């Protein structure tokens, strides 16, 4: 419960750190999409090498999926890394929000991975 007295103390929360903490998952998902889409397009358009494309996509996907899992496994360490203060109001809520966002992002990345396993690289839309 926040007390009136708290209002006289400065805010310990660092806006950027908090934002980064809760949106790390989606940001990494976005990074993944950017890399795989651009790599696939560029490799297919310029080098026309399906093998290389698949390899790059697989490596990127696995790497980012592992990173997300690590974040999920030790959320607190990740929070400390970003210097998210323990003293902000309802700190647990941020943990929970970050957790589920990371989870959803992981699902998104794995689905992209599924596409890589099923579809051949550089093949036309049909």
């Amino acid at each position: 419960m926040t007390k009136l007295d708290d209002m006289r103390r400065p805010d310990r929360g660092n806006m950027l750190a908090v934002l980064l903490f809760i949106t790390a998952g989606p940001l990494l998902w976005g990074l993944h999409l950017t890399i795989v889409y651009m790599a696939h397009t560029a490799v297919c358009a310029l080098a026309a090498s399906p093998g290389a494309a698949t390899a790059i996509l697989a490596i990127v996907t696995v790497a980012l999926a592992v990173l997300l899992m690590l974040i999920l496994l030790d959320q607190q360490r990740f929070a400390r890394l970003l210097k998210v203060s323990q003293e902000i109001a309802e700190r647990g809520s941020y943990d929970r929000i970050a957790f589920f966002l990371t989870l959803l992002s992981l699902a998104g990345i794995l689905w992209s991975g599924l596409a890589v396993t099923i579809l051949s690289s550089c093949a036309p839309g049909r």
Partner: protein
Amino acid sequence: MRFGKGWVFRAIALSALPGIASCSGVQSALSPRGVEALRIDPLFWTSAAVGLAVTLMVVILVAAALYGPPRWRERLSGDRMLIGGGIVLPIIVLTGLFTYGLLVMQAGAVRGEQETDATVTITGKLWWWEVVYEGPDGKAVLSANELRLPVGRPVRLRLESDNVIHSFWAPQIAGKLDMIPGRTNEVVVEATEPAVSRGQCAEYCGGAHALMAFYVVAMAQAEYDAWLAREAGPAVEPVSEEAARGREIFFEHGCGACHQVRGTEARGVIGPDLTHVGSRKSLAAGMMSNDAQAFARWIVDNQHIKPENKMPPFGQFSEEELSALAAYLDSLE
């Protein structure tokens, strides 16, 4: 990879939406007659069934939340329900559907890479289709507004445009694919039974976009070969006197500036090739039936039949002249 017809889902959905099957027409994606369309069909019924189930579930849950006994309502308002229904369930269902979709896609991709023995180049025009076959001797055979396919043989369609973006869509045969200036998109199609179906431009292309259709005629291989041989040949000579007079008028009034009739001096390539126009299913890109009357109407009144089209209206003819001209065009089989 092949899939069954998905009759289970079809049965479920049919019982829910009795109207659909009876509505199917020559342009319906629900009566597939091509390999790709047949592959997409069960995907549709599956996803429709899943969608129906999800909708019903939501309706029932809302009803229960509103009017259910307290015990149900209490269970409904728990966190477990929220995570189970809001996260776990969607992930499972979507993974299933997504995988199915990817498999269908991959089948199409594999097919797209295979060799085919026939290639047809279709170019989107404002607002009609130029269709170029490979003739028996390998020479290009120009035609328009109609696609003929041999049943059971994969045919590669090369889709192009030299003006705005169009989209080629023959629902009974395959899904649509855009025609984009500067690019050539390819799709391999295969008709599974001899039938006539209809298609239409699916990307808004300005002006008469609504009036840019075509027919797809799937025919047995032997029939197709005979047709192609004939299509590759020059136009027939007019037999009736009226048609011969019509041909005179055709040249006197400059029709050959825009239209080609192979075997004559009409070499225009601005409008559709008319060498065998009389043998097509339709006139004006699927807009009119193909008979002498329609020709006459089109010549005089084309700007009302298809506003903004590139052909000027030719209103100067007397009735006799017009019917002679129409008779000639109709005789070009």
